[in-house]
């Protein structure tokens, strides 16, 4: 079937099998390999992208369901070459190790901060609770998001830093 998906601001028209998963469409058809496949069962969140304005697990979304919609991936997180504050936060606070979960984590974090610019550590943990990181024990991911929140609020303390 023919679909047209807007990914990171660019329209892509492709002929795809109806069963093709969005994650494979992004990775194999468009060559956007920043989104990762990790579990098949919507548990790990390595494949999280935005569908329109909402994080989804692209391993359980058909590419056909994205027809006519906007998708945002990690490749579309930086604006004009400038890293998003969330990306900066992950670098500043050692929020990533192997880097496999990182794109999905950052996209959910971006979504959270767009809705709640001053989240508590608990709210950050709750927002990220549908995603798995095997390396960081989550501590520095939480700190990274707090760092980004603080950065975006003009350096005002956003929330109390964890110990």
């Amino acid at each position, binding site marked *: 079937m023919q679909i047209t998906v807007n990914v990171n601001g660019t329209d892509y028209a492709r002929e795809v*099998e109806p*069963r*093709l998963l969005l994650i*494979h469409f992004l*990775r*194999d058809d468009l*060559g*956007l*390999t*920043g*989104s*990762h*496949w*990790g*579990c*098949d*069962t919507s*548990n*790990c969140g*390595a494949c999280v992208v935005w569908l329109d304005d909402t994080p989804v697990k692209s391993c359980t979304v058909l590419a056909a369901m994205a027809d006519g919609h906007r998708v945002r*991936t*990690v*490749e579309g*997180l*930086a604006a004009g070459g400038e*890293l998003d504050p969330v*990306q900066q936060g*992950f*670098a500043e606070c*050692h929020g*990533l*190790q*192997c*880097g*496999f*979960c*990182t*794109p999905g984590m*950052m996209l959910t974090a971006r979504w959270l901060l767009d809705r709640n610019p001053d989240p508590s*550590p608990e709210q*950050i*943990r*709750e927002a*990220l*609770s*549908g*995603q*798995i*990181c*095997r*390396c*960081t*024990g*989550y*501590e*520095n*991911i*939480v700190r990274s998001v707090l760092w980004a929140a603080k950065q975006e609020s003009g350096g005002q303390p956003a929330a109390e830093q*964890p*110990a």
Partner: protein
Amino acid sequence: MKGDGEVGGAYGPVKRKEDARFLRGQGNFTDDIQLPGLLHGAVLRSPLAHARIVSIDTTAAEAHPRVKAVITGQALEGRGLAWMPTLSQDVQAVLATDKVRFQGQEVAFVVAEDRYSARDALELINVDYEPLPAVIDAAKALDPGAAVIRDDLAGRQDNHIFDWEAGDQAATDAVFAGADVVVAQDMLYPRSHPAPLETCGAVADFNPVSGQLTVWTTSQAPHAHRTLYALVVGLPEHKIRVISPDIGGGFGNKAPIYPGYICAIVGSMVTGRPVKWVEDRSENLMSTTFARDYHMHGEIAATRDGKILGLRARVLADHGAFNGSAQPSKFPAGFFHIFTGSYDLRAAHCQVTGVYTNKAPGGVAYSCSFRITEAVYLVERMVDLLARELGVDPADLRMKNLLRPEQFPYTCPTGWQYDSGNYPRALQVAMDIADYPELRREQAEKRQRGEYMGIGISFFTEGVGAGPRKHMDILGLGMADGAHLRVHPTGKAVLSVSCQSQGQGHETTFAQIVAQELGLSPDDVEVVHGDTDRTPFGLGTYGSRSTPVSGAAAAVVARKVRERARIVASVMLEASPDDLEWADGRWRVRGDPENGRDIAEIAMAAHGPLELPDGIEGHLDAETVYNPPNLTHPFGAYICVTDVDPGTGQVQVRRFIAVDDCGVRINPMIVEGQVHGGLADGVGMALMQVIAFDEEGNCLGGSFMDYLIPTAVECPSWELGATVTPSPHHPIGAKGVGESATVGSPPAIVNSVLDALAPFGLRHADMPLTPANVWCAIQGRPLRADLAGPWGTP
């Protein structure tokens, strides 16, 4: 973080070089590799745990229009590739020929034009199985009537793999006979799985004209894999190039070679095109190397006033259907015999029996430091049980029996020589951070109110950095690591190492090591790894060995460069080399600090027209092979605070205090990150994760729906501390740290839960302490979680 200070210079919390690509989605993982003409492979797996293969019909699959090849065990037999050597002197079926021996075992391999078609074709293969009785419970594997799993091995009449022991049995028995108090406990360290977020995979590209094979793969040990491929596939080793691109976590899961890798190689040879094989999550959990599965009986002997005298253990080790556990050859139970832990004992003895079962092969994986996880769990549970028996505080009992600083270097009753340590100090730092007396007061108060709060302690000693090549090899490959350092004329350096980061940040840390030795900025040092054509030989990254071995090699090779630079500098400064001193990143004339040259100046001269003394070749490049004289012995003190709801069995980890001593910290930010990750693993193993089986051998942990991994809400905010006791034999005093927290944290959590439940008279319950398991244990009916599954019936 609280504790000892940092070193300075190029060391310190430098931001990671690796992050730039990962943050932009520009990492390069195995599944990201695209090649012209790339085909995709998929593995057909056994639905049964034990069955004879009557026939395999691939006709329909071969007729699929997008299928390029269907490979069976029979086809591999013709090439001598149906079996491959394991890392424990056993063999493992690449594709089953005679029988299947665990659920998920590889039976056939399809190569197709795309990954969906490859999967479709698996459905078209018809295998006729004759089911056989499955051996699932290790405790029954040696029963006289048990089905013989490995009848492929000549003369095999049972499921016994090995017996192994360490320590002095007679001396230990004598100590036990004379002891005031003996406490015994059976405990299971259940089967777990490392489950890196990126599953295993390979892209194989064989060029039939040149005979060159290139394999991009998820390998923690690219050089060892290259040698293994030469041995298995029979290709000349110099024609094989193994590239480990970015790896999405390893934790030991990516140390072995898997049948899928061999199938991808054969697929490329058969089709003449590159073949990609990447397993899915269920394949990863059901067929690749698991961890633990140690059925342990521990006994501890002590005086009535709390002096620990001896320890003994009997272990039944479930190795699955093929003995594929990965550890140095001389140690079939890994380093389990470091089980005397951190205490000053008179005698100890352990014996381990390994058995086959109809489960996936493996055993040594998941950041276990070659079975030190199991060892630390045993001794730390036994010490807690002894404290309970004696009616003393477990912190006091530990403090009384910990090795004292003046005892180092210390040779333990089973022969390990611990390099350095200050154990009481680490425990005291942890207790200070926790405010231990206040916690005990709070606990007493809560018990009055009927609330169940637990405080658990563990103290661990690791042995990492395998290892002295005289004692430690894997398949005959001694565990020494090479390093090569080039210094360009402008003083920029390229370090090539054999170890392979899976997220540990080697590109940053190892640049810091070289920078520190040569007075450079870490930005001026590029680290090359993960490509056998571009790096010297070495055994890879597992067992927390990168910093102890390859990191030492990096320091040594940098010092070699520095000595070469000294000769050149002596010519430049018109002074004798003996009159030069290295200070502030320069060679300078002793007594004349203004008169010196830095590495960049010396490098340019070393490549220039400067006339050098006879026998001095010029340039500054150097290489080395580092053969560690001993393991390094990091240690730590952990305290875990839990709240347990006896009505639901729910455990909440409220606080976790971790004080680690890994010697000199090159990059404390990265060290802390390593500890954080290991602590989360501890929560998983203690409370959530188990690969369980039903009686027929169906794997009950085959997806993330069933194999539960901690998320951000199950983990507390970790509270870290540090002490620094340098390793006396490591060139920069560093010890390994990658696995410390995974090794040390599970007993702290279990001790904490059982401390919370002490009012119920509960002495012990096995991991994982799921709500169901805890609730049943409170009712006096603890679960065998490894057989029934985490939600199984009591």
